[in-house]
């Protein structure tokens, strides 16, 4: 009888496998995977490829100049960053933006969330080797960018929200165009369901991959869809309402499982919620002023202000200390991707197989430029 070759185990030395920075599925992130055979023992992250020192740069600039600077923090979701900064300055000065300005901000921020999630569908599909999903999602993305362009005058970086409101109102016919795009996207969501979310390949690769329970997730600093996917019902938009969010009727999408697939479905649900929110807010749009222009160069009194908003990735906080001039003394940006990539990702890949690493990474939806700042 032949000797059973499978009886003896293969000997693997512990080895280091680099992940990134030049890798199709890593973004601009570098990590070393310490592997025992196929299994990842430890992940050592080396971030900093996109570090620009935003918090230092902002100390030298006027508030209105900082508004142009902050949307570069996260390329995929610039509106949330602008919203956070505009609001923290308003909070420090003690003046609120006009009602219409708040509505415009909220509508654009929700469109930004849809934009970010659709980009993420493309990236996730790319990481899972589902090329048609990538092409279609990144093609649809153009439609929302076109809306941004019409409303704000900038494609990716709108430079649109300033302390005191927004820089201009919606142009004529924007509402009809926006509703048309939303209808189109709603139709496309069915396609994404068939193509990505209910696809057997995606399901098998994401289910029971990268699981954490609610206690671990909270201790590691998870926020946003990643946290809601393990059953904790927290949403800054609902719990600490800002701008026009009290006017909109929405629910935070939660799941129980806490695995990669639950995170994906959470984001899928958020797209639908955002679409309905934009529709409601476009209907309720009030009349009036859009901006208090003096606030852009106003001096904030000595003290500090802390403001949190919900970006597409999770809790985005701005903490500003002011010394009585029209420049901040210190700004701290708490980006959601910072803890997602640097404390949750190393925890989740421990014990996973190498092939699952890109799937776990993109199921967390990190943004490397938000992480490094």
């Amino acid at each position: 009888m032949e000797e059973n070759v499978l009886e003896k185990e293969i000997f693997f030395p512990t080895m280091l496998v680099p992940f990134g920075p030049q890798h199709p599925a890593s973004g601009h992130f570098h990590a070393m995977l310490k592997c025992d055979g196929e299994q990842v023992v430890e992940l050592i992250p080396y971030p900093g490829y996109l570090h620009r020192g935003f918090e230092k740069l902002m100390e030298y600039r006027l508030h209105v100049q900082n508004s142009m600077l902050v949307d570069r923090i996260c390329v995929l979701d610039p509106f949330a960053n602008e919203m956070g900064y505009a609001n923290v300055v308003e909070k420090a000065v003690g003046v609120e933006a006009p009602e219409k300005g708040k509505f415009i901000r909220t509508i654009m921020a929700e469109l930004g969330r849809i934009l970010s999630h659709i980009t993420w569908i493309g990236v996730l599909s790319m990481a899972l080797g589902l090329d048609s999903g990538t092409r279609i999602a990144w093609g649809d993305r153009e439609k929302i960018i076109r809306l941004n362009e019409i409303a704000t005058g900038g494609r990716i970086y709108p430079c649109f929200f300033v302390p005191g409101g927004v820089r201009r109102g919606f142009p004529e016919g924007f509402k009809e165009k926006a509703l048309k795009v939303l209808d189109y996207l709603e139709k496309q969501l069915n396609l994404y369901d068939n193509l990505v979310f209910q696809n057997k390949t995606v399901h098998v690769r994401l289910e029971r991959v990268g699981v954490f329970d609610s206690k671990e997730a909270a201790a590691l600093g998870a926020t946003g869809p990643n946290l809601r996917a393990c059953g904790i019902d927290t949403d800054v938009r609902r719990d600490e309402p800002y701008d026009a969010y009290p006017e909109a009727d929405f629910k935070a999408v939660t799941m129980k499982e806490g695995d990669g697939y639950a995170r994906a479905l959470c984001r899928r649900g958020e797209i639908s919620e955002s679409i309905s929110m934009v529709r409601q807010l476009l209907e309720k749009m009030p009349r009036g002023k859009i901006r208090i222009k003096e606030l852009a160069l106003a001096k904030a009194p000595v003290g500090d202000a802390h403001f949190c908003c919900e970006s597409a990735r999770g809790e985005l906080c701005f903490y500003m200390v002011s010394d009585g001039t029209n420049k901040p003394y210190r700004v701290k940006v708490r980006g959601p991707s910072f803890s997602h990539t640097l404390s949750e990702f190393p925890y989740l890949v421990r014990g996973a197989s190498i092939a699952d690493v890109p799937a776990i990474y993109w199921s967390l939806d990190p943004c490397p430029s938000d992480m490094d700042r």
Partner: protein
Amino acid sequence: MSEEITSSLKSNFPASITGIVSEDKNFSLTAKKEEFCEMLSWLKDSGFDHLSDVTCVDFIEEKEFEVIYHLWSHTRKLRGAVKVRIPRESPSIRSVVDLWAGAQIHERENHEMFGINFDGNPNLSPLFLEDWEEIPPFRKDFNSREYVKKKYYGGE
């Protein structure tokens, strides 16, 4: 809502709390360096299970660093900030890694950007910057514009 937390904090730690600002849904207070860890541990047990942020402000004129812990409670829906002042000459403070595992990376960032030592943190190696030889960049006495002029524009 935050009243009840701040009043019970006051009765538990009467000696070390100064400057409480308490609003409807958030509060902030300044704690003494000796007892802040017990206070954070008490807050964690009473529902503040999310450490949003550890950050630092360099008050160069007062020769002090202020380390700020931003907390959030998923159950109470409350936000809190605990501020601790430490001297600028020997900046060192106890680590809170054993309370929140996510604090590790925040403390590592603050160590790199401000040069604060967090006693008890297992890994404080440089995070973002490679081959950095100047003083930590987020300190107020580091002038980014002068550094850039010297390094990149040949001192123009």
